[in-house]
């Protein structure tokens, strides 16, 4: 491809008798600086441009008035509550929080996915078959789990030290694990106390 041919490098010529023959100078250009320049430009473009465009994560919040009824309708056996604390701590419990806090467990963002999957499988196993199922199966192209996981409700409660990243990560986990019913609500003072007690102990 690119090459500079010097054709022998003969740049000298006879000036006349008595004059010394001019030194033969090579016209080969050393390409090393041009390579440096090329790679510098590439690095510049890598850092200042973007190849991946940002995506939109949809979030629908319920109207305030209906929130309490929605939560109470959810069966206790299918409810999983996830609390988000500071420093990327995640706590969870199933059903209602017991007064002695015995069902309050802690994990991290990797562990919570396993918990959600386990809970989901448990709900699917325990689901009582009802008349609406065939219709829902037909709507969801034969996905048998689409009716069986209806009892699973995940309640997400971030506290005031949780970061936005934690919130988005948990919402992501909902999408990743195909959880259809989830809600984001405020943490109650009792729950906050339990979180503080657990974090204070660490």
């Amino acid at each position, binding site marked *: 491809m690119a090459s500079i041919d010097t054709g022998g490098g003969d740049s000298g010529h006879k000036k006349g008798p008595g004059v010394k023959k001019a030194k033969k100078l090579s016209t080969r250009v050393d390409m090393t600086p041009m390579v440096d320049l090329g790679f510098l430009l590439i690095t510049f473009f890598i850092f200042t441009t973007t190849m991946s465009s940002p995506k939109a994560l949809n979030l629908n919040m319920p109207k305030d008035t209906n929130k309490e009824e929605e939560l109470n309708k959810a069966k206790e056996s299918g409810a999983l509550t996830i609390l988000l604390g500071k420093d990327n701590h995640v706590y969870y419990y199933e059903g209602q929080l017991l007064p002695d806090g015995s069902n309050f467990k802690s994990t991290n963002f990797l562990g919570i996915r396993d918990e959600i*999957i386990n809970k989901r499988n448990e709900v699917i196993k325990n689901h009582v078959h009802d008349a609406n199922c065939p219709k829902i199966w037909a709507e969801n192209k034969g996905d048998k789990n689409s009716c069986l996981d209806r009892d699973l409700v995940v309640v997400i409660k971030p506290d005031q030290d949780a970061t936005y990243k934690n919130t988005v990560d948990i919402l992501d986990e909902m999408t990743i694990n195909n959880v259809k019913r989830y809600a984001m609500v405020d943490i109650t003072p009792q729950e906050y106390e339990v979180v503080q007690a657990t974090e204070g102990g660490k």
Partner: protein
Amino acid sequence: MPSVKIPRKSTDVDMTPFVDVAFLILTFFIMATKFKPPEPVEVTTPKSVSTKELEDRNAVLITIDKDSKVYFTANAQKDLNVLSELAGYVSSTRTLGLTDAEKQNYKKTPLVGVPFSQLKQFLDLPPEKQKEVKQDGIPMDTTGGELTYWIQAAQSAFKGSQLWYMIKGDNNSKYPAFKMVIEALKKNDVYKYNLITAPEDAPPGTELYKERRKIS
């Protein structure tokens, strides 16, 4: 024994193919990527597995930076006069007394992060000077703060057309700031919004991963 002369070969590498490759890669980058638009407020969004693309529509963008400060931007797709109407609405409802010149200036303002009390002085500056002003964010409180009025202004200025609400939060911003933004949106009867995130692949082995492989 006669010494064997080892034929000497030149160790100079010919650099010309290197240059060719470098310029080819460079050309690829120039053609396939876009420059990142310079933003007054740098925000690192969290990653999510969502694949929904951002649409080019009339939109309201609420930015939350890493110190949990809130900024408001309105993007008008076709008619920029809507933006001066927005400024006019804010001016009349909050009695700021913005002049026409200031309202026109709002069209070129990328993002607002000052309290209403400082808005008039802010809009007096030309856009280049606006970049130098340290904007401390729109004052927020648990009932929505001043953001509620900005959203209300946007709704009335973009009357009729479906407005898209986007929230762009930084990784390190705290949840209460996000909650206050949601309160401001709820006050204006908005329950559906989109969080701007960076793309990420579905983790292997999970439900979503299997679903996506089935469809493709």
